[in-house]
């Protein structure tokens, strides 16, 4: 029903929002604002995926990144009560000169690459039903046929990261805690003394149980 211009207008709007929000991620001093700006970027990107007829990718962009990963980011920022970042003068001095230079260099590279593309550019947005790359059926098929090995390898990688996190954060047995405590005590006096030593607590527990 629509001609291309409306889709292009929507694309330009979403792209502008995404770039603006992405700049805000690094320009904001308050970490919560940065996280919120990143969420806005994700949502705008999800909109551009919709324009490419990739509904599944669009939905996943919001569900996984905006709905799950960023919630954890915000959670951690709130839990640790991260303060507003303060500018440190000693480092800012030379960064103020270097950063614009690097930024201009990056822009130049992008421009150079864009110019060197000689083949006809694909249309900005595809027509409805022309390239349904992003449907559930196509992605599922690709994932379990051509890209089966990378898919499984990635899942093993994620599993390893999960197991690693669990090992680091697991509850330690009393014996382990005692050994660790002794090592720490040898190294330096602990900053906070426990209210009651572990042995006394255990004795009390035995009394209560009896």
């Amino acid at each position, binding site marked *: 029903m629509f001609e291309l211009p409306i889709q292009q207008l929507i694309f330009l709007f979403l792209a502008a929002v995404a770039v603006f929000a992405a700049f805000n991620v690094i320009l904001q001093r308050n970490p919560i604002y940065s996280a*919120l700006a990143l969420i806005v970027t994700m949502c705008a990107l999800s909109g551009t995926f919709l324009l490419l007829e990739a509904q599944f990718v669009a939905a996943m962009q919001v569900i996984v990144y905006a709905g799950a990963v960023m919630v954890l980011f915000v959670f951690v920022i709130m839990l640790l009560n991260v303060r507003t970042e303060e500018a440190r003068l000693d480092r800012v001095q030379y960064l103020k000169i270097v950063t614009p230079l690097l930024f201009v260099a990056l822009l130049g590279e992008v421009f150079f690459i864009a110019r060197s593309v000689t083949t006809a550019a694909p249309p900005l947005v595809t027509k409805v039903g022309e390239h349904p790359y992003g449907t559930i059926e196509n992605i599922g098929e690709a994932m379990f046929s051509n890209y089966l090995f990378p898919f499984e390898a990635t899942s093993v990688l994620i599993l390893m990261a999960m197991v690693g996190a669990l090992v680091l954060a697991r509850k330690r047995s009393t014996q382990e805690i005692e050994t660790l405590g002794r090592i720490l005590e040898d190294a330096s006096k602990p900053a906070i003394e426990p209210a009651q030593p572990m042995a006394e607590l255990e004795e009390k527990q035995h009394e209560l149980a009896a």
Partner: protein
Amino acid sequence: MPIDQQSIQFFVGILLKIVIVFVIGLLSPVSMNWVERRALAFMQMRLGPNRTGPFGLLQSLADGIKFAFKEDVVPLAANKWLYIFAPVVAVVPAFMATIVYPLGPKDIPIPFAASINSFVASLTGLQLNLSKMDLHVTSFNVGLLYVLAVTSLGVYAIVLAGWASNSKFSLLGGLRASAQMVSYELSLTLALVGVLLQAGTTDLVKIVEMQQGVYFGFLPKWFVFVFQPLGFMIYLISAIAETNRTPFDLPEAETELVGGFHTEYSSSLKFAMLFMAEYVNMLTVSVLATALFLGGWSGPFVSEFPLLAPIYFLLKVFFFMFLYIWLRGTLPRLRYDQLMNFGWKFLLPAALLNIFISATISLFAY
């Protein structure tokens, strides 16, 4: 862009339907809040609000007016912009989910279509040819994922409201909410995978269409009976946790956190928005439960009288909404460690088991 008669009719129809689901969304807090207070009161041997209007029916309206006219206090220590922004974040995704509610089937004949056509023609001179309509705003091939995506943004409202209020009770409520909702969202989504495996589509209307008809002359082909009873139970429990209702209402636990994330929202319109979002979210999970497990609009005589479809649908949704109230009157609140243990150590493995069972059945049955 050429504007023809057909596209005008299309747009007006879509807009009308959006207004209708919007009104359903707006009415749900008003009506369900009255039902909740009365039903809860009777469960606790009280009367509940019974003075405003017949049976106290206008109580919620009176409360709404009170919200609108109360002084709007922004706490001095609060982060002003996020404090104002949080209720908006709550309401917008909640109402965005309403557009995929599958209230009824496609292409049902409009009653009195001819007289409406002639009436509009005599009034404005526009020649309409209304004859059939779909009883849902839209249906697209990632409908279910759309609902999940939109509702997953609702958690930010609670987290931001808790953080921006700058009070310890609010912050604790917000932190609890984010941990709880992320944990239970996992088992909620995994419980739906069973349905998707069986249906082979994420289009809500198509999933409902698949559940029409009966087995052996009496058993409806609803997914709750056909291979998904476990998935249904997991979905129901995680949905209650997702919407922060008793027995999983730790983010607002009155007895320990005063009011949790909305402690500092002093009964103004902002509080009304948070409140409305909670009820619309309840409505959305009830609609999903109805559409995915209870056969949506299916029921006796629907094929003969298609206008019965939305009535059946809303009745089933009401059943789930009442279940929420029923549970609130029955169960005490869980302790926080119990909540986390239950979510991660029981619900999640059960959801994985359900996927395994559904996948095996789909492999051999279809």
